[in-house]
């Protein structure tokens, strides 16, 4: 711009109101863009220093690249999933008895089924000519448990979702029961909880206990995951397939559940009776679902109710019913280490026993 043009320009700025405004807006944007880019540049050079000073720790994949990779992976996976022979509905033909609910004890049974199988095993041994019949340690424990009702095998798992004393579990554990006993051995808590909501469609239910019981616990360290689960995402769970809490991990293997039910998803993870009602977390410790069943015909196939359905239901209940499932104080743990995450989450997972 020559000096003459400059003068004319400045003159116009003084006289023309809208021109001045436009120019100022432009100036603001151009400074903002400069500052933003400068920030990016400085951050990048600091990132290089960081990698220089702490070389082993970080390997950075930039976000856009990650998105591209995951999109590609999903595309490839979805292509693989499409049945090349057009045998649509093949899964529909399988019998319903593949769908295996994961309650620890069948309704109406005494709950000593594993003793029976253990005994059968011992008998088989003697038939084969082994003379030295000994009790397995497992059996000794079950004999003790006959004496101690507290030590009996849990029906399944429930977990606290609100400081007001609300728990989520799988509805098939409750069936006709109005009340159940919840227990958390580590905290030394045993108390009763009543059924306050049973979903008509999916396998989940809400229990409530006296809020005083959970008063001294800290705030619940997880929230509902806000996004959709992606195929291959790492998940983990804590449940009670035996008398102590057990940790298992797996990956999301399908976005739909048994017979392509879209309210469920499928996880490649081994699961045993007792895991019913166990919460499923993603790697950041966000709640992503509830375990309900596995596939008895296939190995390591477990089904879980989707988190977004449950969250939606809870929101609905808050508005229409008198349930005050306040989850505002729930927080997210920022621990990267799995064992640290578990330490925080663990006190909120409870065993369900018969009332």
């Amino acid at each position, binding site marked *: 711009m020559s000096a003459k043009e400059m003068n004319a320009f400045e003159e116009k700025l003084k006289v023309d109101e809208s021109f001045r405004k436009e120019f100022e807006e432009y100036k603001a944007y151009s400074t903002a*863009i400069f500052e*933003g880019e400068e*920030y*990016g540049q*400085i*951050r990048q050079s*600091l990132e290089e*220093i960081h990698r220089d000073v702490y070389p082993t720790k970080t390997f950075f994949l930039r976000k856009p690249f990650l998105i591209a990779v995951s999109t590609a992976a999903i595309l490839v996976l979805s292509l693989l999933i499409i049945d090349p022979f057009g045998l649509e509905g093949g899964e529909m033909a399988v019998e319903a008895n593949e769908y295996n609910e994961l309650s620890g004890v069948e309704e109406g049974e005494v709950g000593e089924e594993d003793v029976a199988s253990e005994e059968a095993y011992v008998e088989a041994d003697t038939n084969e000519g082994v003379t030295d019949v000994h009790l397995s340690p497992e059996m000794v424990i079950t004999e003790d448990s006959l004496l101690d009702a507290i030590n009996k095998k849990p029906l399944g798992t429930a977990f606290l979702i609100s400081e007001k004393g609300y728990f989520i579990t799988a509805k098939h554990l409750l069936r006709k029961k109005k009340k159940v006993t919840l227990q958390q051995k580590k905290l030394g808590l045993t108390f009763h909880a009543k059924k306050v909501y049973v979903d008509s469609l999916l396998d989940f239910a809400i229990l409530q206990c006296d809020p005083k019981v959970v008063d001294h616990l800290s705030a619940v360290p997880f929230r509902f995951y806000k996004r959709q689960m992606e195929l291959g995402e790492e998940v983990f769970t804590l449940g009670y397939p035996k008398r102590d809490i057990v940790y298992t991990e797996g990956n999301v293997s399908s976005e739909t559940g048994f017979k392509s039910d879209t309210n469920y998803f499928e996880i490649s993870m081994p699961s045993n009776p007792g895991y019913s009602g166990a919460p499923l977390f993603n790697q950041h410790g966000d709640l992503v679902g509830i375990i309900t069943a596995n596939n008895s015909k296939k190995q390591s196939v477990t089904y879980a109710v989707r988190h977004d359905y449950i969250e939606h239901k809870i929101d609905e209940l808050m508005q229409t019913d008198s349930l005050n499932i306040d989850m505002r104080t729930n927080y997210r743990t920022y621990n*990267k280490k799995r064992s640290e995450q578990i330490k925080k989450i663990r006190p909120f997972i409870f065993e369900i026993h018969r009332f």
Partner: protein
Amino acid sequence: MISKTEISVETIQLIRDRDPAMLKTIYKEIYPMVEKYVRENSGSRDDAKDIFQDSMFLLIKKVESAEFQLSSKLSTFLFGISKNLWLKKITVKKLDTKAYFAEKSFLDVPEDDDQKIIRLTAIKRGIDELGEPCSSIIKAFYYFKKSMQEIAEEFRYANPKTAKNQKYKCLMRLKKFIIKGS
């Protein structure tokens, strides 16, 4: 040990010039303190790195302004910024409000640091999400201050006018991004 002493004129000049050796020295000496603090207050290593790098950025920007004066030690100042940023961040995420209000009164750094970082991050993300060639054109014009003539040559536009046209379109898209992001 620069962190233990009062900040000198030479040090300020080196930071102002963004001297890599100087930045590295500061990084090495003060980052461990920040990492310890953040991790003790429910943060991860990555959080600590983010916070510290943002604080370094703010330090550089503060030093650049003419009226910058620092009476305290560099470590105190930089750690103060980091602490403020982290406390703001966890307050926003509703992690630990009590800690923030307890410590708030001891902080003498300006309140709007975190807002600045949020704003700049949004702009930077906007620029990156524009995609090519927009992203590069915007950077070339607004950051590297290249002329339209140079840009036209670099991006093989027929003439500066076409390049200007393209840049204008990119700017309009970026505006949308920034408004959406903030």
